[in-house]
């Protein structure tokens, strides 16, 4: 009987695999990269995330909000309280004065990241009709996650380098931004990064396109899933505990059943 069950499972697996094979589609997937935060032992590379924050602040933040994050959160990627206070104080946050009139005051730790536009409509109006998406969950909100993000940031092909077939197939004009990994290839955002766009502090890596793209992806991955390290840590403990527990339970079960087999 057990043999038959096993053969049944094998037959199912074969059928499933066949169906999945049919499912393979012709979408351009960005190449897979190794990320510091992947796998059960993954952690965030603090230095990379801090550089990534610099890239976000100096480049992305001009158009993209990060509305789910507060300045205080930056302490989680290794910045000191004084550093974060200084970062928060750089921005002017709308508030009310004691007599109720609208004022702007320097940001505090508890403030959310300041948005580049006052609201979605203003963001859309300033960007050709479509608001740049919020980046708080970007790494979790796209198929492919960090690989996709890195692919988009590094996947721009200048018009001159496109093949005539590509230009024809996707009807690209000189004014379009062609991106290898964007669905449909024509993306509204012009290439945001290029070598040396940001000046990293001395002693760090050179601010190449790949380096910046990878750093800002690390930062945004943290922004999407700030508790990943605690989750992995807890997970390893829980799974080890359950394995030991299962072993004991199995021993108990065998003991109980010993006289019935």
């Amino acid at each position, binding site marked *: 009987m057990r043999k038959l069950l096993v053969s049944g499972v094998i037959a199912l697996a074969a059928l499933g695999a066949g169906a999945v094979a049919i499912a393979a589609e012709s979408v351009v997937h960005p190449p897979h990269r190794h990320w510091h935060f992947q796998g059960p032992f993954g952690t965030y590379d603090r230095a990379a995330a801090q550089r990534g924050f610099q890239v976000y602040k100096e480049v992305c933040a001009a158009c993209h909000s990060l509305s789910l994050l*507060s300045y*205080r959160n930056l302490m989680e990627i290794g910045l000191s309280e004084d550093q974060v206070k200084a970062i928060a104080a750089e921005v002017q946050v709308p508030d009310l004065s004691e007599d109720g009139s609208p004022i702007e005051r320097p940001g505090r730790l*508890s403030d959310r990241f300041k948005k580049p536009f006052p609201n979605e409509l203003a963001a859309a109006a300033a960007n050709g009709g479509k608001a740049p998406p919020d980046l708080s969950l970007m790494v979790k909100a796209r198929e492919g996650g960090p690989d996709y993000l890195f692919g988009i940031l590094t996947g721009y092909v200048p018009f001159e380098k496109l093949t005539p077939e590509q230009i024809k197939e996707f009807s690209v004009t000189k004014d379009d931004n062609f991106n290898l990994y964007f669905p449909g290839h024509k993306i509204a955002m012009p290439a945001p990064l290029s070598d040396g766009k940001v000046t990293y502090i001395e002693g760090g890596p050179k601010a190449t396109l790949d380096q910046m793209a990878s750093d800002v992806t690390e930062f945004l991955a943290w922004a999407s899933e700030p508790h990943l390290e605690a989750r992995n840590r807890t997970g390893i403990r829980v799974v080890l*505990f359950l394995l*030991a*527990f299962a072993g004991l339970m*199995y*021993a108990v079960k065998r003991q109980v059943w*010993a006289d019935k087999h």
Partner: protein
Amino acid sequence: MASSTIPSGAHGDPTRRDFLMVATGAMAAVGAIATAWPFINNLNPAADTLALSSIEVNVKPIAVGQAITVKWRGRPVFIRHRTPEDIKEAESVKLSELPDPETDTARVTDSAKKVRPEWLIVVGVCTHLGCVPLGTKQGDPRGEYNGWFCPCHGSQYDTSGRIRKGPAPANLAVPSYLFTSDTLVKIG
């Protein structure tokens, strides 16, 4: 696995059997407690709540003899700019007369150990059953001791916010505060 030590087809000897049961029971108890923890921890204040746990108040506009109420951690905090008479009155009371003995100086010292007798900062919650005592606004009754008077059950506080009369068991609480300049105080 642990099971390899158990002879199959037999009960095993009693001590080993008991040990196995006790170990498994202990494991289950540990698992249950560990599982309960996130559910209990979940009810603690969240990070965004904690981030708002301190406020900064500019005390410059408060004239001598006046007091204001500010909201801190969802509760009222009284900041009183005391007159020299208030201070004298508070300092002259004998500790033995107080239901909850505490010197006035101890109640006007900030977290950097700096004493500012002209500023009294207390949590405006009566220590009896949690009402907000009167006495902060101009024209409020201040009770027999010229401090605060709780309308709920008649507790009376003095110019140092100490309980003098009535059912409240303790003085009005002094929150942790720090004068970051002569006019700016950080509460919490």
